[in-house]
């Protein structure tokens, strides 16, 4: 079983602080937590929400009904009340009402000797009480949070939490709580995970321009720069960012840029440069609804076809789209490895949902394990950067020590010098495109969950969690259905995917309006007709929603 706690209020009121606190504390209490966020493109005001869904087993995404709603404002109450589950409760910093418990949080904080800021500790304490949980893990979380401050800060916060619990003591245990087990794992977010994986893979230059929802990865890497020995630079624009990455990779270090759709659009020329010069540029593309500025803080999966075809001319590229946090770690590394093995750009496609998603998962390896850059040990005296080879990969050396390393965005000879010899052009273009074959051989097959079935819900990237939950729900209802999740979305080896879906009823589940992966699969000859469950309102899918739509209970 699982319970959903939703915190709603204006930006700047501590929605996120309260949510983060509860997420960490409840994980430490031995629950499985899954925290997701929805926020507006503003710094103060509006209505933001933070869901902490807790379970006695893995929880992979959000769901709409909340058993407990914590609201800081009347507007938030009006906005979110309809999402309270039947029999659910509301904790409101205002007037009591039917099912609404009044809790004057700032006042309570003051009463406990704290400042108005500590209202979030009051709220967390009250939530703990309503869940019938022991305050131990909350106290510990607060101590940890303020470990670097004066000891009194943590103490006051704890007093506030206790005050909150005390004030709702009458309703202790009123919200059903899953049974806690042994505390395990660590709470991490998608952004953190991608950042960590990049750092561990040996990224040495990160150059980006801030853009929601990619800024989290950028920020995490800035914070980890000293620890991992990374230069993190805020570029003047995205064009600078990608060209710095191209320069850095040319000169010999793994490098990455982080961006979202609009910024990525500005990088299209640089991407083509990486293709031409055979540079292992890595791009993290964190998606949000578009076109143009769209919904800056919401989620979507609308940039697959663009990413697959961005940049003028024809060149190989790989695109990974992690679903789980574990996959975010693995595929980020794989993006770096693929880029370096094939000397061509690789992309990681996430989105706001995955970037902000937090769960307690098995701890990830934080030790630096730099990937192989694929450099020649000692380049020969007659070294040629673009020597023609069978698999299309030329020997790679870096400038500075041995022979000259010459690279050119024009078509070039094996030497790297610009050429207008059209036979050489064909030779070099063939060489570059030959990599496609090898890259296709390494295609990461999509994965069934739990096992192939008559009906297939096919998805990619962050839809993994909700889709998996949907499959569980549908199977529990007796339906012969499975998920097929694509962790790599480009290039697709159609010949290997085709038999996986042949004879099955396929429904694409995608966060866009046109079933983009569906058309990629069609183009790759893997898929003929398919149905689609699509969502493009800026919110992530939920498991129950997919299940209902797949069951045909709501129109798709």
């Amino acid at each position, binding site marked *: 079983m699982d319970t959903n706690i939703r915190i709603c209020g204006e930006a700047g009121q501590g929605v996120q602080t309260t949510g983060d606190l509860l997420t960490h504390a409840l994980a430490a209490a031995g629950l499985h937590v899954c925290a997701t966020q929805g926020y507006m493109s503003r710094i103060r005001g509006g209505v933001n929400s933070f869901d902490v869904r807790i379970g006695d087993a893995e929880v992979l995404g959000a769901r709409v009904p909340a058993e407990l709603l914590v609201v800081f404002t009347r507007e938030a109450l009006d906005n979110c009340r309809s999402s309270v589950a039947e029999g659910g409760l509301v904790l409101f910093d205002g007037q009591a009402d039917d099912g609404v418990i009044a809790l004057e949080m700032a006042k309570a904080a003051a009463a406990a000797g704290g400042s108005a800021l500590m209202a979030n500790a009051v709220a967390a304490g009250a939530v703990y009480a309503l869940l019938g949980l022991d305050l131990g893990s909350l106290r510990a979380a607060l101590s940890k949070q303020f470990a670097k401050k004066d000891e009194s800060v943590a103490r006051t916060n704890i007093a506030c939490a206790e005050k909150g619990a005390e004030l709702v003591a009458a309703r202790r245990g009123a919200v059903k709580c899953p049974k806690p087990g042994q505390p395990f794992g660590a709470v991490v977010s998608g952004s953190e995970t991608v950042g960590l994986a990049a750092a561990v893979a*040996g990224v*040495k230059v990160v150059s980006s321009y801030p853009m929601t929802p990619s800024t989290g990865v950028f920020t995490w890497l800035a914070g980890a720069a000293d620890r991992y020995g990374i230069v993190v*630079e805020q570029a003047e624009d995205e064009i*600078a960012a990608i*060209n710095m990455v191209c320069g850095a990779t040319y*000169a010999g*270090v793994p490098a990455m840029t982080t961006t979202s759709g609009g910024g990525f659009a500005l990088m299209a020329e640089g991407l083509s440069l990486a293709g031409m*010069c055979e540079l292992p540029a890595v791009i993290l593309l964190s998606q949000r609804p578009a076109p143009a500025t769209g919904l800056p803080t919401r989620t979507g999966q609308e940039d697959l076809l663009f990413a697959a075809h961005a940049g003028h001319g024809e060149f190989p590229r790989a695109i990974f789209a992690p679903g789980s946090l574990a996959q975010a770690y693995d595929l980020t590394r794989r993006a770096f490895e693929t880029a370096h093995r094939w000397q061509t750009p690789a992309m990681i496609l996430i989105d706001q949902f995955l970037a902000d998603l937090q769960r307690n998962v098995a701890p990830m390896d934080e030790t630096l394990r730099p990937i192989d850059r694929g450099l020649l040990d000692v380049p020969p005296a007659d070294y040629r950067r673009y020597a023609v080879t069978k698999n299309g990969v030329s020997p790679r050396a870096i*400038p500075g020590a041995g022979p000259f390393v010459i690279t050119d965005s024009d078509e070039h000879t*094996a030497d790297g010098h610009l050429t207008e010899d059209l036979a050489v052009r064909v030779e070099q273009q063939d060489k570059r495109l030959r990599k496609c074959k090898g890259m296709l051989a390494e295609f990461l097959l999509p994965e069934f969950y739990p096992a192939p079935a008559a009906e297939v819900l096919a998805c990619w990237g962050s839809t993994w969690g909700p889709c998996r939950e949907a499959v569980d729900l549908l199977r529990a209802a007796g339906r012969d259905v499975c998920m097929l999740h694509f962790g790599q979305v480009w290039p697709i080896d159609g010949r290997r995917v085709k038999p996986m879906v042949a004879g099955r009823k396929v429904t694409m589940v995608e966060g866009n309006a046109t079933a983009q992966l569906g058309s990629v699969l069609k183009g790759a000859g893997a898929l003929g007709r398919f149905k689609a469950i699509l969502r493009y309102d800026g919110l992530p899918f939920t498991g129950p929603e997919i299940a209902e739509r797949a069951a045909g209970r709501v129109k798709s």
Partner: protein
Amino acid sequence: MSARKAEPVGRMNETAWCPGCGNHAILKTLDAAVAEAGLDRRKLMLVSGIGQAAKLPHYTDANVFNGLHGRALPAATGIKLANHELEVIITSGDGDMYGEGGNHFLHAIRRNIGVKCFVHDNQVYGLTKGQASPTSELGFVTKIQTHGVVSVPVSPLALAIVENATFVARSSAVVPEHLQKMMVAAIRHKGFALLDILQPCVTFNKVNTWQWYKQRVKELPAGYDPANRALALETALKWGEEIPIGIIYRAERKTFEEQQPALAKGPLALTYGK
């Protein structure tokens, strides 16, 4: 493997420039300056964008990154960050640097990243056949600017000084000896160096010719103080019958590289995995 015979890769045999173009003199002077400065060619890193000037790196012995039009600066920045022991020199055109690349020009200077930026300023777009560039003079007539240029030209040197560039100089292909001095000085400078090089384009710029530049360029007076910013600004803005050449502004400031903790242990490209 390529059929070409196995010799070390060096410069291309032949340039693609017009006879009489100022670029030839700049190339020759650069080679002389590299020799005079005693640079290790293996550590010499030439970066360029796209244009006639931007072809230069192919015509000498060096590592070459000939990237996108307008994007020499960010590419050079990335290279310098990956390996700050490389001597990174940009050779690019006025369109490349001040037109398409204008935003990078503004911001690379702020960083004081240690790359040397040699701009072949022929006041025209050469490779695309003669459109106006950001330094084309008012009234300059082209097939696009059919009534003549109406946008006032940029003053790259003044911009750089306002931006707190630490080395700002002007020279010209018409005075190779002076040019060589400037190149060597720029190379020896620690941070970002801008060297704007007035260059005749014999094919598309019939206004600013060899003669035109020769008559106008004038070395700064002895005793000129390049540390005086107000004077430097005034000097940089001079343009007309007399065009001052020399080191117009010089200042000391920490380089970008010096302020990156990650680079303390040596070049990232060389210490990787160690």
